[in-house]
């Protein structure tokens, strides 16, 4: 494969654009300039570090090392889900919900992709395992965060409606049904949009990356279709698991709405 290697100067030029954007934000008092600079620096450090980790990982093909990296990715993703919620559950439940939904969805779909679809030897070859897990985990993290935030925020605002539905003789599940469905839609919307506009409005990042790295476009397209379908499956599964656990936790055994279990 032939590709044009980027020099530090190339990256510095791109960085100047972000700095210019931050400067504009300061000038217009948009209050996102500082945050933009911090996350840009954070992204650079994180990506450089993962580059080094991947370099080591690719040269060793060690399952234990792969599991360690995957665990770190899971912990960070779970924390990100938490950070994006306005009303979090108290105690361990908050991290439990995000970690278990991300683990079951992203890890199982990655496993299916590696063993059944890719069929590489060994199946845990980091060159495939890490990018697949990374893309699935990253996307599912956003989807689960959106859904959980929508659920807890709407339940908080509409607590009186939910209670009056309970009083009218509905079960907790019936009383929560409309909100749960809206939360599922909120979480699934980004991937539905991505599927609807893939190749027409936006050229997905992975495909673009492969083409830039010299892959034939049709090969890149096949991988992109695969990854989009896997992301959709993982998002759906993650959201369903997260909302199932969260919905159960919002009510007690007597089907009372327990808002004391989430933070104000």
């Amino acid at each position, binding site marked *: 494969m032939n590709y044009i290697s980027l020099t530090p100067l190339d990256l510095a030029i791109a960085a100047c654009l972000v700095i210019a954007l931050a400067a504009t934000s300061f000038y217009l008092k948009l209050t996102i300039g500082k945050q933009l600079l911090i996350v840009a620096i954070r992204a650079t450090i994180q990506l450089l570090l993962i580059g080094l980790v991947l370099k080591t990982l690719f040269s060793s093909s060690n399952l234990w090392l792969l599991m360690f990296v995957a665990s770190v990715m899971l912990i960070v993703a779970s924390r990100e889900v938490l950070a994006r919620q306005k009303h979090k559950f108290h105690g361990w439940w908050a991290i439990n919900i995000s970690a278990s939904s991300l683990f079951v969805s992203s890890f199982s779909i990655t496993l299916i992709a590696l063993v059944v679809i890719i069929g590489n030897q060994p199946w845990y070859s980091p060159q495939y395992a890490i990018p697949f897990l990374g893309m699935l985990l990253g996307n599912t993290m956003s989807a689960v965060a959106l859904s959980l935030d929508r659920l807890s925020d709407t339940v908080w605002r509409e607590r*009186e409606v939910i209670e009056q539905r309970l*009083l*009218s*003789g509905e079960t907790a599940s019936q009383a929560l049904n409309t909100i749960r469905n809206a939360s599922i839609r909120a979480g699934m919307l980004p991937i539905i949009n991505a599927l609807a506009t893939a190749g027409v409005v936006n050229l997905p990042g992975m495909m673009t990356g492969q083409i830039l790295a010299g892959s034939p476009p049709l090969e890149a397209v096949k991988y992109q279709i695969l990854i989009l379908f896997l992301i959709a499956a993982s998002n759906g599964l993650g959201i369903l698991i997260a909302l199932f656990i969260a919905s159960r936790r919002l009510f007690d055994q*007597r089907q009372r709405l327990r808002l004391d279990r989430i933070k104000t």
Partner: protein
Amino acid sequence: MAQLAIESLSTHHVGPISLTIDEGQCAAILGQSGSGKTLMLRAIADLDPHKGDVFLDGKPSDRFQPPQWHKEVGLLCAKPLWWHDTVGEHFTLANDPQMEHCLSQWLSQLNLVNDIMSWPIQRLSTGEQQRLALLRLLMNQPKVLLLDEPSASLDEKNTDRVEVLIKQYQRERQTAILWITHDIKQAQRVADHIYNLEQGSLTLT
């Protein structure tokens, strides 16, 4: 026989409260705002965690499935809320001709047009919402009524209509009623016993 029995009920800063209401009897509860009247009703309706027991016809609340308890011991909230688009969607008639007949009769008793069932919720006035919320509750045919200021936003005529309908329902079905009101004259009109809730404890006046 005591239809509703409350034993050492306490929730938040209210209680412990013990009270029994016999079949066909009505107890009114007076008390200043913030004295815990609504909290007490919420605990009886099993909406909030609480200590103590509540019995319906001698059977404790935790022996009922929660939706069944809410249907049998019906709580009418002071501020009625709606979750479907139209009024009619909140009334599950389940093709019961008897209940359909009751509903149409109750609508005219409360000076509401039959057509109101097809109205969008936004079209309802506060007073109409309060009267419809009462009917929504009665359609479950509760054995006990917990009423949190059921006529708070009604004019005099509609207050009369609501009182007459509740008393009629009570007579016909021998319902026990716990009625919260700020209006001592209303309490005297509707209740067999009047209680005062002060600093979390209940006293008979």
